[in-house]
């Protein structure tokens, strides 16, 4: 059994449901924060994802970053040292989707050699209020070479899928690197 450790940054506009998503992922759908509580600067969580077929576990150190501009100066320090990232937007909020690209760029500006990332459209349960269509999200993700997911933290649908995908991606990157090192050693 292998254990890989991965630092993961979760970014996005404020009140798009980053903390709710992380809480649901961490509690495996048991705990959903009913009231909105603004995240101050950043919060730290850890959760292990098992990849059974590869006999590997990936331990995620999740950095829940505040979306407020107040903490722009602090964010940079936190982002440094992360391997992967998630940008979250609210499907009922056009502005949050527009700002998602800004968040991706910001991350890429700080972390140049990231292993990979994902774009998540949250609050898919509010169907009558959807402003950002899935296609647009997919397009944006493709544009930045990211995986795209739509989920609902409230209903707990598709919450674990992005994290599983990231774990697999991280494992693949690790194995590629290991192979590269091995080839380098041989040469």
């Amino acid at each position: 059994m292998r254990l890989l450790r991965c630092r993961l940054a979760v970014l996005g506009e404020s009140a798009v449901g980053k903390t709710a998503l992380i809480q649901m992922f961490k509690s495996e759908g048991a705990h959903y924060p009913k009231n909105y509580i603004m995240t101050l600067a950043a919060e730290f969580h850890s959760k292990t994802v098992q990849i059974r077929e590869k006999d590997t576990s990936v331990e995620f150190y999740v950095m829940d970053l505040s979306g407020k501009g107040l903490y722009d100066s602090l964010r940079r320090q936190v982002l440094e040292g992360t391997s992967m990232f998630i940008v979250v937007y609210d499907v009922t909020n056009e502005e949050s989707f527009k700002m998602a690209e800004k968040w991706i760029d910001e991350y890429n500006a700080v972390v140049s050699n990231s292993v990979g990332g994902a774009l998540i459209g949250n609050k898919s349960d509010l169907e009558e209020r959807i402003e950002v269509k899935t296609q647009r999200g997919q397009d944006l993700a493709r544009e930045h070479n990211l995986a795209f997911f739509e989920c609902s933290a409230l209903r707990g649908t598709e919450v674990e899928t992005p994290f599983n995908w990231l774990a697999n991606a991280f494992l693949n990157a690790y194995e590629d690197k290991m192979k590269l090192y091995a080839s380098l050693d041989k040469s």
Partner: protein
Amino acid sequence: MSLQLDGCLTPLSAERPPSARPGSAARNGPSGAPSPSQGGARPPSGRPQSGMRPGSAAGRPGTGAQRPGSAMRPGTNGMNLGNVGNRNVLSQGLGRTATKTGMARTVTDRNYYVGELRVRIGELNGEIEKMSSEIEQFERDNQSAIQLQKSIDDVTEEVEALQGQLKDYNLLLDRLHTSTSSELEVEQLREQANDLKKSNEVERRKADQIFTERNAKENQIAEIEEQVHHIQQDMERQLGELNQSDRENYGHLKAENSRLITDIAEYQAGIDQVAEEIKKLQNELRLDPSKQKNLTLHDELRQLQKQKAELEEETSNKLSIPEEIEKLTHKVKATNAEVQTIESNISTVLEALNKLREDISNVEKNMAESKSERAEKFRDLVKKDKDMTEFMEQYESERSQLMEENAKVEYLIQTALETASKYVGAEHSLPSADMVNQMREDATFKEDQLTSSQQTAERLKHELDQRRSELDKMANLDGKIEEEMQGLKAKIAKMKEELVNFNSIDTVKESFENNKKLQNQEKQVLSKRKELIGQQNQVLSANNDAKERLLRENESHGQIEILEKSLRHYEQNNFHIKEYILAKGKEGDYKTIRDEVIKLTSDMNVQVNAGFSRMKL
């Protein structure tokens, strides 16, 4: 108020001792307050005290003056008259005053009492006379009452009897009036009475007939007795004519006859006794099951012996086959004849039954006409009918039983005939005894051979099954063997590969040793690193603690924390408000309606323009 009046007007008050009055007269003012014993219920202000009155001077002489004093009372009385109107006049008061005054006057007169006594004595005498006359009358009445009581009893008895009669009559009348069938009942009763009379007449006639018959029989008996007497006389006469020897012979014979009669009586008694004993023993036998069984077995034995004897007789009288056939045909014919006779009997019985039924119907008809006379006949006929019906019911079963028996007998005869004819045919082609014995031996030998061959066949079949199952197993084994072969080949290849290594075991050992050394070195490095990291961790945690402490001590940090809290609170509110606005905005979104309206108006405008252009043209 009433007490006052009572105290003043009663005669007794006039006879009061004079000392009472002076006492009351001496009283004055408050000291003269009345006590309850002095009729003190009176209020002090009820009327003026007598002592204060002008008429009642203090120097009044004793009793003599009392009367006039009391005579003054009317004055007192008059003083109170003003209050009389307030009283109930009927209950007490003025009327009473008058009588009391009258009484007071008569008491003083002596002659009055004398006169009064005389009047009373006269009244008593009159009363006594009246009572004595009443007593006499009562005694007289009493005497007459006894007589009357007797007559009453007689009359009541008569009345009761008459009432009973009346009740009967009433009941009869009621029945006559209420029941419509009463007349019919009466008629029926009359008919019954007539029937009874007739039957009585018949019975009387029968009795007369019997009586006449009896008389005739008695006459006959008398005649016979007379004839017997004549015969005896003749016999005596003939005996008298006989000689001495014959007479003696007769005497002997007579004596022997009498002896024999007595003997017969004795033997008869003995027979009766024996019969009784037999009966007793039979009863015992009947009660004892083992003896009963024995008896039945004896009976069976007897019957079997009888049958045996019959059979022996039959075997002794062995007939030739054609004779047998003839005999059996005779038997068959006889049974057929029996059957025919039974059938004819049945037909006759049926005819008789029909006839009887007709008779019954006739009798029933006649019965309707005259019930009482033919009731007995009818009963007899009913009984007969019952018997006949029973016979009829049983007839079918009996007939079928007989027919079955007949069929059985016929079948037996037929089979017997068939076997007989077969034997007759086979009689000429029968083998000899030696040949038969040889054939039997051959048959037994062949049977043995057959059984042995059957056994071998079975054994062979079993073996064949075994071989087949083994063959199947072998076929399956091929696949398994192939699999095993492949596995073994792979193992061989692996082992060959390993064998190369095993051949150079020294090199393997060397590489292992090198590897071990490297691992140990790495282990040492890592353990050193671990220690260093631990130290660094301690340093860093100490730094962290110091920084945290500094941070806590920092005022601006505290302020920032407070501000952050308030910010968090505001953001929370802000979020809720935004959510609310969004929800309401969605609810009040008129964009679609606006678009529709614009589209509609534009369409209308287009149509209006088109209309105007057409009008211009």
